[in-house]
């Protein structure tokens, strides 16, 4: 077991909790998806894993290699962030620093975890990570600013940045939503390949049930902060819960053209 969440509750100040009693497991090397509508609590869950949302009050347990991340102090947590668990986000343009070349940002991610490493090593690691992220011309991308790169290339640079510290778990929060279908497919293929080759567990968050069905081994379905269903590989096409069925119907839009979709 790589990452396990037990009875997680996420609340902001004194408001009603946004996520309640969430338990899930991300197995080693697996491709696990968390699916839900906008506002169902997917992203706060993703961010809570490494405690990236300060104002939220987290209760429950998040276990990663034997430790409860919710009880670690800030210093220990820094080693987990990036070192054990990396993140990539939905919009590659807004998650890269616009005033630094892409390569510099990847080097920075490496040097945080290897403070004594010489500059040349950081550069080589960055180039290697860009190669791993299937970027055809790593040298050029290294020198480029984010605005000089396409959305797909930016997202690959983000993946390279997430990989350069050699994590065990990659949390990908809507990694393909901002990309077109062809690029989307390339990025998903890349994540699947990395998961198999690098022993990486991918925890993949999306509102796109079709995408989750195509790629994930296990799908967790979240509705208004509560887990409604867990679908294994065999059950992917036969949901039991009404909410999941509704999500399925919304996906089946091209079955009967020019008719109303039943939702």
């Amino acid at each position, binding site marked *: 077991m790589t990452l396990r969440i037990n009875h997680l509750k996420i609340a902001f100040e004194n408001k009603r909790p946004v996520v309640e009693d969430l338990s899930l497991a991300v197995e080693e090397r697996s491709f696990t998806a968390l699916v839900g509508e906008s506002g169902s609590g997917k992203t706060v869950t993703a961010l809570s894993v490494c405690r990236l949302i300060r104002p939220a009050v987290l209760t429950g347990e998040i276990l990663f290699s034997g430790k409860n991340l919710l009880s670690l102090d800030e210093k220990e947590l820094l080693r987990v962030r990036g070192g054990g668990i990396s993140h990539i986000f939905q919009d590659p343009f807004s998650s890269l620093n616009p005033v630094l070349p892409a390569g510099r940002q990847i080097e920075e991610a490496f040097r945080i975890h290897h403070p004594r490493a010489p500059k040349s090593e950081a550069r080589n690691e960055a180039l290697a990570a860009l190669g791993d992220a299937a970027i055809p011309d790593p040298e050029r991308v290294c020198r480029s600013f984010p605005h000089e790169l396409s959305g797909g290339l930016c997202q690959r640079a983000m993946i390279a940045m997430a990989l350069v510290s050699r994590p065990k778990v990659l949390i990908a929060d809507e990694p393909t939503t901002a990309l077109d279908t062809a690029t989307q497919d390339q990025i998903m293929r890349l994540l699947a390949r990395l998961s198999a080759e690098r022993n990486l567990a991918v925890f993949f968050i999306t509102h*796109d049930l079709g995408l989750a069905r195509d790629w994930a081994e296990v799908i967790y379905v979240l509705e208004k902060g509560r887990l409604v269903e867990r679908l294994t590989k065999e059950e992917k096409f036969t949901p039991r819960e009404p909410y999941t069925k509704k999500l399925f119907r*919304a996906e089946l839009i*091209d079955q009967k053209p020019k008719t109303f979709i039943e939702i």
Partner: protein
Amino acid sequence: METILEANHLRKTFKKHGVKAVDDVTLAIPKGRTLGLVGESGCGKSTLAKLLLGLLPADGGEVFFGGQKIAALKGAGLKNFRKNAQIIFQHPHASLDPRLRVREILAEPFWIHGRPDASFLKQKVAELLERVGLPPHFSERLPRELSGGECQRVAIARAVSLDPALVICDEPVSSLDALVQAGILNLLLRLQREKGIACLFISHDLRVVRHMSDEILRMKCGKIGRF
């Protein structure tokens, strides 16, 4: 079949980059029907939409709307064209004025095309909100107080407010999740049935286009192919 809009050999090159965004495109949209347009990012779909509405000048070719050449329209003729050919954009938040309340956004088309009195406007705004499935109290909201799906409903209400003959939908559901997307598609189908509006439906998502269209064109590197 009678067409509402025709484009012949449209061309547009962006000189700075030397990109032929639209390259010899000819198409026709029949009255009351939906023409679908699919293609990946950067193939020129949105540029084509802007050329068809005269929001961008073409380098070559011509567009006819109801038999009239749009490049030659001026004054009242142009105003009438603008009233009859509307557009819904991809990013709902970016296409609404952030400083205006929903009622002002929906009243603006009536201000531009006539001098309506306050009670008429109030009634129209209420009607429009109801038609797009939003509660009446939304009239006082600002765009930032709306979700993506709600914003898109306001943008749709604005586009259909003057009973246009044609609406160009440029990726209207691409930034929305599946359930909200299904709701918006249902709404567009319903409005189209009620009023017989012709539609050019643009998306990179073939499934969505297939769901909405009577006929589909595919665009690649600025060129059109039949599907």
